[in-house]
């Protein structure tokens, strides 16, 4: 009797959820479209799949990290904020939340995600912008591939490394701080690593985007870059160094906005974005590291890697460390 009652309750709840889903879908369809502001790259396949599956048009506006907050705040203050949903590194969404630009929404699609990804009622984490040592597998001998981050300080890598500028690239600054907090046993060891890396005179580029090209062409042999390029740049001869220590990255977050022009389409989009299907596309087509359980990018060995989300750094902290790294790496 008790079992039957539970089964009935479950069935009723499922039926209610389906009805709620259908209602949301109908309302979203009536709104016609959803506007998505994001800094993530190559997400057009998800936009397309969403439009095909729901009949609601998804419009994607890509805004770089450096312009994200200024654009969102300016539009919001002028009453012209057109985004229904925003996606960006966690610190950006925290700033938008402080300005009153985000609305609370707990997506049912996030139910299976780890508890730590449910940042609060406003922000849901769905991925990690993971950073690794990427090398040219045709030009680097297997024996030389780093097994620990410290190996990057070996003189064999002198003038052979490419990385984003550690004096200003926020994600790289966060990554270096993450190494201090999660990988190196002491600050002295961390500092030794930084100085060793600096002594190898890495070539600096503006962000992570330009890091793989010099590696694939052989201009540089190794770089502080992202494993996702192994997927997006195939058949380029790129591979990642499977170091014994954890991989680190900035959490990627999503939220609905506080005055969305299409409120139902906004919630429907977040539900879809967090679904296994959308996260599967993001992992498979874009090589992203996602937090949907059991979904991994098609990169050999990534499913066994330990990937840690770096804690949020305030802008003051980022600026302070950027200035320190500027001195250590002799940027000027």
């Amino acid at each position, binding site marked *: 009797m008790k079992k039957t009652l539970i089964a009935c309750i479950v069935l009723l709840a499922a039926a209610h959820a389906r009805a709620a889903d259908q209602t949301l879908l109908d309302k979203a369809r009536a709104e016609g479209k959803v506007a998505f502001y994001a800094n993530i790259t190559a997400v057009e396949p998800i936009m397309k799949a969403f439009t095909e599956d729901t009949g609601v048009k998804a419009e994607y506006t890509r805004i770089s990290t450096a312009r994200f907050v200024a654009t969102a705040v300016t539009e919001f203050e002028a009453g*012209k904020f057109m985004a229904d949903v925003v996606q960006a590194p966690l610190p950006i969404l925290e700033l938008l939340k402080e300005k009153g630009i985000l609305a609370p929404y707990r997506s049912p699609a996030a139910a299976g995600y780890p508890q730590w990804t449910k940042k609060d009622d406003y922000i849901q984490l769905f991925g990690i912008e993971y950073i690794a040592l990427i090398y040219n597998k045709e030009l680097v001998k297997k024996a030389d591939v780093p097994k620990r981050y410290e190996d990057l300080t070996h003189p064999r890598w002198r003038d052979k490394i490419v990385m984003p500028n550690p*004096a200003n690239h926020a994600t790289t600054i966060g990554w270096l701080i993450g190494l201090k907090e999660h990988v190196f046993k002491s600050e002295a060891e961390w500092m030794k690593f930084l100085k060793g890396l600096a002594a190898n005179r890495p070539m600096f580029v*503006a962000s992570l985007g330009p890091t793989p090209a010099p590696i694939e062409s052989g201009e540089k042999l190794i770089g502080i870059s992202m494993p996702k390029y192994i997927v997006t740049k195939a058949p380029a001869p790129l591979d990642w160094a499977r170091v014994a220590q954890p991989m680190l990255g900035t959490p990627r977050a999503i939220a609905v906005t506080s005055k969305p022009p299409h409120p139902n389409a906004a919630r429907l989009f977040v539900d879809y974005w967090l679904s296994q299907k959308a996260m599967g596309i993001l992992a498979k087509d874009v090589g992203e590291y996602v937090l949907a359980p059991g979904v991994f990018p098609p990169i050999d060995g990534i499913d066994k890697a330990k990937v840690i989300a770096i804690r949020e750094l305030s802008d003051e902290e980022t600026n302070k460390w950027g200035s320190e790294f500027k001195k250590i790496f002799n940027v000027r």
Partner: protein
Amino acid sequence: MVQARSKLTYLLILIVGSLTLCPVVMLVLGSFSKGLTAFGSFTLDKYVQAYTDPEFFNAIANTIVFVLGSSTLATGLALFLAYLNNRTDIPFKFLFQIISIIPMMIPHLLFSVSWALLLNPSNGIMNLVLQQAFSLDSAPFNIYSMAGMILVEGLLDLPVAYLIIAPAMGSFDVSLEESSRVFGAGPWLTLRRVTLPVLRPAILAAFILGVVRSLASFSVPSVLGMPGRVYVLATYLYEMIAKGFAPDYGKAAAVGMSVLAASVILIIVYRALTSESEKYVTISSRGFRPAVVELKGARIPLFLVVGLLSMVLIVLPVAVLLYTSLVPYSMVPSARAFSLMSWKHHWTEVLEDPISVLSLRNSLILGVAGATLGVLLSVFVAYIIVKVRSTASGVLESLSYLSFSFPGIVIGIGFMWFFVQTPVYATLWALLIGYVATYMPYGIRPLSSAFVQIHSHLEESSRVCGASPLTTMRRILLPLLVPGIVSAWILMATMFVRELTLSVVLSRPGTEVLAVQILRFAEDGLWGKLSALGIMMILVSTGLVVVATLVGARFRFVEAAG
């Protein structure tokens, strides 16, 4: 006549002022505002922070070297090429003319990357060839250096300088040179004492525009300077706004004010140096005829020099782009790389991508409509600047430079702060207005150079014969201005087709443009797609240049026949 000119001056001040002042006012507000947007409580903090940073002065020192070096190179090369193309019987002139302006059509980002592929010290193609040919131990050139930056920026600014100097060179009255020769001066002395002084306004205009352009340039300092750890003002500003997640554009605007001040000073200097404009008038009577200098024995050697120069400096980087668009990923040329070449890797994907196709269409519309509108406005502004040398015309000239003088990274935000208050925000109109407002000097400068050489006696004669100001403009001035109009249109159209700075801030779904799509590919490290779309951009611009040149030639012919 004077009253009509005065009315026109004030009308133009109103139009140009509202176009250029609005974003600048927003930037001024932003630089004094406490918040992240243009409006907030008042503070001087941003100025104090910006101008007490010792690194600011290091960046300034590097900027001076970079700006003067690249502008000198661009002006010198433009003068050399314009002289040969316009005044001599060197063969394949039309081809050289196109080649001189090709860098104008290439996105600066792509041009810088292609030079990095050619001359990087690790495996730059040209370096590898030279190392093998001369058995060198190390790469002879390093593009990641101040010299490399000057070379590439100089080449990128060459078309601007060329398109300003060439029309002036083309309208040059050869009787002045003939007189010099009659009095016994040799070709070199004539060049130095007659030709160059007469061309001074055009040369100065080209140089000053080059200075202003390279001051605002970002691609070259970022792609070539950053890896070489050579920082100039643009990369200093980038560092300022790229650090952290809530960058302070107001602080960047505060630094931008000094660039603006430098630009305004340059304009004042330019006006002082060309104040006696009558000195440079060369088209004053029916005796005007452009003539060709016979190179005789020097014809073939000079052709080879220009050919080699064009090959090394322009054709090679474009060839690198074509190569990159055909190989599956960034590869040094080899037998394997050539065996893997295919259109399918990137060209097909780009042509099947709806946003890339939409961006091609939008850029073409903006190029044609924007340039036509821009040239129309520029004709009137240039006329007032040259022919009415009053305080009001000086104000007009300074206004026309306002938004152009700001570093590109900053002015885009100024426009966003402004347009967001208007209904045109997030439409193609915002891009069109922003383009015309920012790049007006590209239209005004070549037209001013052309106006400078037309004596007011021609206008006065027309008026004496009873023609109205509009008839005088249509029948007398416009036919003589055709080379300047064509140059201005080409400059604006090609600039608009590849415009990035404003577009990246103002573009929204449906209003994507080529440069923004190219930037997306760059951010994803997709150099093959980037190159394929870049070449499409060059083809679109080349098409526009050819059409403009042919229409210009036809218009001149019809007017001459009439």
